[in-house]
C-alpha cells in the first residue's frame, strides 16, 4: 500500500457567510496517494481553485481537517504554514511564477536557497532539473526572454527543486497555446512516471484531462465523480 500524502476530511469553505453564502467547497473528502497524477475538473466556479488553495495551505477551511503526510495543516499557525509549504509542497501557478530579476537557473534555485541548501548540492540539483525540463541552454536567461511554456517549465523545475511531497498546479496550461500545453503535460507525466512525483492540477482543457490517470470532477463545491483510471474511458462530453 502506498503512502497517503493528502487526506482531506469533511472540508468546507464558505464565502460571504453573513450575506449570500457561497459554498465554494462543500464537505469534501479526498485522499491522494503518493505517485498519483490527478486532474481536478469542473465548470467555472465549481471550487477547484478554492480546494487547491486549502490543500496547499494558502487558505484555511471553515470546517474539516487536512492531513499532509500525517500533519494536520489546519492546525498550523500562519508562520508555521509558510515553513511547511517550503518543505512539503511545490506550487505552479497559472502565470507570473518567476522572479523577473533572476535568471531561470536562479529562479529554480530559489527554493533551495530558502532551505539553506549548500551551493554544490544546489548546482547539482538545478542542472539535473534543467536537463529534465530540457532547458539547460536557457539557464542563464531571464524569464522575460522565455516563452510562456518555457516559463511554466521553469516553474515546474522550481516546484520540484526541494523534492516536495506533491505539486499543486492551478490551471498550469491556461495561458499556453496547445503545443506548449501538451509539451508541459509531457514533462509532468514523465516526472510522474520516472520519479513518482505526485501531481494534483486543475484544468479545463479536455486534452489535458485525457492525460490524467485520475480525474476528480467538482460541481458546486462537491465531488460529482472520481475515477481512478481514465485511459480507456471515452472523452468527456463537451459541447
Amino acid at each position: 500500500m502506498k503512502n497517503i500524502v493528502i487526506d482531506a476530511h469533511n472540508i468546507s469553505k464558505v464565502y460571504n457567510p453573513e450575506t449570500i453564502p457561497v459554498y465554494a467547497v462543500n464537505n469534501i473528502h479526498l485522499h491522494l496517494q503518493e505517485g498519483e497524477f490527478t486532474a481536478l475538473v469542473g465548470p467555472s466556479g465549481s471550487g477547484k481553485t478554492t480546494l487547491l488553495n486549502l490543500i496547499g495551505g494558502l487558505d484555511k477551511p471553515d470546517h474539516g481537517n487536512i492531513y499532509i503526510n500525517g500533519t494536520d495543516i489546519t492546525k498550523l499557525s500562519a508562520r508555521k504554514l509558510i515553513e511547511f509549504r517550503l518543505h512539503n509542497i511545490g506550487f505552479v501557478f497559472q502565470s507570473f511564477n518567476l522572479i523577473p530579476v533572476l535568471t531561470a537557473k536562479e529562479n529554480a534555485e530559489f527554493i533551495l536557497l530558502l532551505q539553506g541548501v549548500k551551493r554544490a548540492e544546489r548546482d547539482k540539483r538545478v542542472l539535473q532539473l534543467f536537463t529534465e525540463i530540457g532547458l539547460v541552454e536557457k539557464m542563464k536567461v531571464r524569464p522575460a526572454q522565455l516563452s510562456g511554456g518555457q516559463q511554466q517549465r521553469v516553474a515546474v523545475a522550481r516546484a520540484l527543486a526541494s523534492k516536495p511531497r506533491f505539486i499543486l498546479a492551478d490551471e498550469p496550461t491556461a495561458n499556453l497555446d496547445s503545443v506548449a500545453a501538451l509539451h508541459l503535460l509531457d514533462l509532468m507525466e514523465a516526472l510522474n512516471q520516472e520519479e513518482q512525483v505526485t501531481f494534483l492540477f486543475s484544468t479545463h482543457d479536455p486534452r489535458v484531462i485525457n492525460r490524467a490517470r485520475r480525474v476528480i470532477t467538482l460541481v458546486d463545491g462537491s465531488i460529482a465523480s472520481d475515477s481512478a483510471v481514465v485511459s480507456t474511458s471515452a472523452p468527456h462530453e463537451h459541447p
Partner: protein
Amino acid sequence: MWIVKLAWKNLWRNPTRTLVTVAAIFFAVILSMVAEALKLGVFENLVKNVVSFHSGYIQVHKMGYQDEQILDNSFSQDNTTASLIANTRNVNAVTPRLEAFSLAASAELTKGCLVAGINPELENNITQLKTKLVAGKYLKGSDNAVLMAEGLANSLKLRVYDTVMLIGQGYHGATAAGKFVIKGIVKFGSPQLNNGILFMPLPAAQEYFSAEKQITAYILSVHTDKLLPTTAVAVKRVVGVDYEVLTWEELMPDIKQHIATDSNNMKIVQAVLYLLICFGIFSTLLMMMLERKFEIGMLVAIGMKKSKLILLFIIESVLTVLTGCLAGMVAGVPLIFYLHYYPIRMGGDTAKAYERFGFEAIFPTSTDSTIFISQALTVLMIGIALSLYPIVKILQLKPLTAMKK
C-alpha cells in the same frame, strides 16, 4: 548573502525609479545641509557683528546701570576685580569703559553724542575698533584726543585734526568741558553708532568727566559663544551682588529677537523640506509595493519567510537611502564651503532690515562639521523610518489576497 544580491538586482528592476529616489535623497541631503549651515552661519555671523561693533559678549556694570545709564551709576576701576574677571573660565579679554552723553560742538554746529572712554589697545582686542578707522590715526593710551564716528563728524562738518568742543555733566554734578583734537575718523555700519559716538582714552575721559578712577562698564569677550550663559553666571559669582552682569542678548534684546525669528524661519524651511522628502520617498515606496504585490504574495506562497522578505526590503531601502545620503554629503560639503567664502547676499527689504542694525545683509554658511553628519543622518533616519511601510505591508500580507488580480 544571496539576499543582498537579490536586493541589488531588485534595485535595477526599475532603474528610473531607483534613480529618482536616490536623486530625491541626494538633493534632500544637500538642501537640508545648506539650510542648516545657513541657519547656523547667519547666527554666527550676526553674533560676531553685534559683538564686534560695540557691546562685547558680556558687560559688567554697577547694579542698576542698565536701567539708568548715568555717570553716578559708575564704579571705581580696580585691578583685582578686572583680573578676577579675566581669569574666569571662557573669558578671553576684558576692557574698561567710561561712557556718558555730552554735547559736541564745532564752530557753528552742536550735536549730542556718546563719549566713550576706552583703553585703546584692550578695546581693539574685543571690538576691533582699529579696523573701523577710515581717516587719521588710532588712539594711544596717553593721548588727549578723540576718534569720531564718521556720521557725527559729517553732521558737525569736522575732519581729522579739527578740534571738537565737548560740554556735558560730569560725575556728581560737576560740569564737564573740554577741547579735543580729532585724531581719527571711524566708520560703523550701525547708523546709531555712526551718527553719535566718539572715543577718547580712558584717563582723558575720566579727567573730562571729573570721574577719577571711575568706569561704567567692563566689556568682555569669550572664547566660545556656546558657553555664554554659564560664563555670565561664573562672572556674576566673581564680582558679587554690587554688580550686574549682562550678556549681549540682554543688552540688545531686539537683535536677539531678530536672530531668533530668522532661525525659526529657517526651521520652517527645513520642516517643509523634510516633509517633501517624506512624500517623495513614500510615493516611490507606494508604487514599488503595488508593482511587486503579486510577486511578494507568490514568494510567501512558495515558502519564503516574512522575516526574509523584510530583510530583503530593508537592504533595498538602506542601499538606496545610503547611496543618496553619501552622494549628497560628497556634493554638499564643497557647496557649503563655497557659500562660506562666497556668501549669499540679500537685497531689498531684508537688506534694509539688516542695515538698520548695522549689518551687511550677507549670509555665510557655517562650516561646522556636525552639520554634514547631522543632516545626512536625519535624512537617513527619515528614509529608514519610511521603509517601515513595506515592512508593515509585508507583515499584513496574505498570499492569496496579494495574488488576486
